[in-house]
């Protein structure tokens, strides 16, 4: 397994004054399902288009499998793309669409027929050869786009928000299917999405982008549990931010004072400076416990429920805790909005669930 299959070295892309991608460097492993995640305008699509060859970088260079592709046009690159709107040629049927990319590969007729047949069965579209784009559903179009890209057997498959246009149920199905497909054929996938749940559930590794820069690059569970900065913590999942100040530090541990909660000693994973007020604490809603009676957790607060919303698999409580002048969100699977009399409750927090982040 080649750990630096795709090398992105100091890549920048400016559109006039706007820095769409700003000096980004990282590597993607061979056979990896890699996601670029971020809000719209963060540069993730530009980065993908740089890999595809639709844009050329202002600075830096790109390597795939050891070959410098920075200056190569799209037709000379070992990549293929699944477009956001699928871009199925409307004047060609499904079969011709899929054959389209094979003409320049110098294959025999038999081989072309076989490859088309194989890829159609891979994406479960046998029997749709004669259909045209306007006779297909959104999900089927997405499969055609996938087949058309995969039939060329690229080294890297680029996917530009391919699931964005599908409804929720179909999207969940396709997520699983794409993941299985990728593991079976072993091609490196670079997947662009703004949907954090999608990125987290499918990818081996995720690069979270904002303002043209990589904010954090790690495995999905790392992103969720140990966000490196306030942007990632906010963008991935839901969280509560609380005002805090750092006191003395002994390297591994740091003393902090959190507004309304008091002083605690917690692990300092991000090496945050001592005696600073430029920090915040992040606590995930589901890491807290809501209860009717006092618990023996590290922190237990008197609180009042102001509002609830029932979500089916869990209930979200908006609570006002003593000493904190900010509504805190807590989610629970064990209680619903009818469980609490007079809205009185207790909120319990474990110290290991508090992550300390720099404000900037």
């Amino acid at each position, binding site marked *: 397994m080649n750990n630096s299959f795709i090398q992105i070295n100091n890549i920048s892309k400016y559109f006039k004054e706007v820095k769409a991608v700003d000096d980004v460097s990282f590597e993607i492993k061979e056979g990896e399902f890699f996601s670029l995640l971020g809000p719209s305008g963060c540069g993730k699509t530009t980065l993908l288009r740089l890999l595809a060859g*639709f844009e050329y970088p202002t600075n830096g260079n790109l390597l795939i499998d050891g070959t410098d592709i920075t200056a190569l046009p*799209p037709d000379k690159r070992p990549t293929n793309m699944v477009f956001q709107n699928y*871009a199925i*040629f409307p004047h060609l049927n499904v079969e011709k669409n899929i054959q389209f*990319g094979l*003409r320049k590969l110098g294959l025999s007729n038999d081989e072309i027929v076989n490859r088309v047949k194989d890829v159609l069965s891979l994406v479960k579209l046998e029997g749709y050869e004669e259909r045209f784009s306007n006779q297909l559903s959104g999900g089927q179009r997405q499969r055609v786009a996938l087949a058309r890209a995969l039939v060329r057997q690229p080294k890297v498959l680029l996917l530009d928000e391919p699931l964005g246009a599908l409804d929720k149920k179909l999207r969940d199905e396709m997520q699983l299917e794409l993941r299985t497909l990728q593991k079976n054929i072993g091609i490196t996938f670079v997947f662009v999405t703004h949907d954090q749940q999608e990125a987290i559930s499918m990818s081996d590794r995720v690069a979270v982008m904002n303002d043209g820069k990589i904010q954090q690059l790690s495995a999905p569970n790392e992103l969720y549990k140990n966000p490196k900065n306030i942007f990632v913590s906010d963008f991935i999942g839901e969280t509560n931010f609380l005002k805090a100040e750092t006191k003395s530090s002994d390297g591994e541990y740091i003393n902090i004072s959190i507004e309304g909660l008091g002083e605690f000693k917690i692990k300092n994973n991000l090496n945050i400076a001592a005696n600073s007020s430029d920090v915040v604490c992040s606590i995930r809603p589901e890491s807290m416990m809501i209860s009717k009676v006092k618990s023996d957790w590290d922190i237990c607060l008197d609180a009042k429920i102001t509002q609830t919303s029932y979500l089916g698999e869990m209930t979200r409580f908006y609570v006002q805790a003593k000493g904190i002048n900010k509504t805190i969100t807590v989610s629970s699977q064990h209680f619903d909005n009818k469980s609490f009399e007079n809205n009185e409750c207790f909120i319990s927090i474990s110290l290991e669930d508090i992550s300390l982040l720099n404000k900037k």
Partner: protein
Amino acid sequence: MIGFWKKIYAKHDSVKAYSLLSPALILIILAMVVPMALMLSFSMFTQVNMMEIDYTFTFQRYIDFFQKNLLVTLLIKSIKISFLVTLITLITAYPVCYYIAFYVKKNKMLWLVLLTLPFWTSYLLRVFSWKIILGTKGVINSSLINAGILNEPLTFLMYSETAVVITLTHAWAAFALLPLYVSLEKIDFSFIEAGRDLGLSRFEVFWKITFPLSLPGVIGAILIIFIPTVGDYVTPALLGGTDGRMLSNMIQAYFGKINNIPLGAASATIMLTTVVFITIIVSNVTKKLTQRLT
């Protein structure tokens, strides 16, 4: 009585549709169907002398047409000139539309308006201005002579087929721009990117994706230019001389100076049929060719 009509009106959608259509329908019947029928019937009469017409039905005028070499030659020439005009217009207008559709980001409308600006003046004025440009003492000739490049004016510029082709091309270009632009504008740029992504060069992408997808506009432009230019008689009359004369000039003469209305009507009918026939063939051939292309 009024109640009765109201009921019918409310109940039957077709009555509504016809009453909406009726102004246009009446106009078309009066201005198109009636004259056409008149022309068809006149083509089957015989001109006896200057004043008299024999109204017995005969197909002799159609036989006359094909027996007169001049008329057949003029028909072929009309088609040839229109064909050249259509081809040149397409070749010049297509790249312009391509550029506006894909490379102009802002103010596309302004570009289109600027391109069609010359067409806000009258057709006749434009024909006359070409006379000023192409004439023996016109802009081209006098500047070439003054520059010492030529001793005598170029005669093929004026009163010739060339003059007719140039003038007609310019006169009808605007009508080609719009259908071409509309069909190119509709093409999603991601189709072109997908073509490149699938291993095709720019040139191949154009012939296998862009051009086939713009075909409705191309066929539209062909029809819009070919049909009216075949029958144009102002330009050949003013700029064509003897060399650039077209069948329509002859038809005009039959209805006027020569005063053989039946033969004129037969010529017009033959021309009309030929044009319809050619447009059907052209649009089918273009479609077939593109299918083979892709």
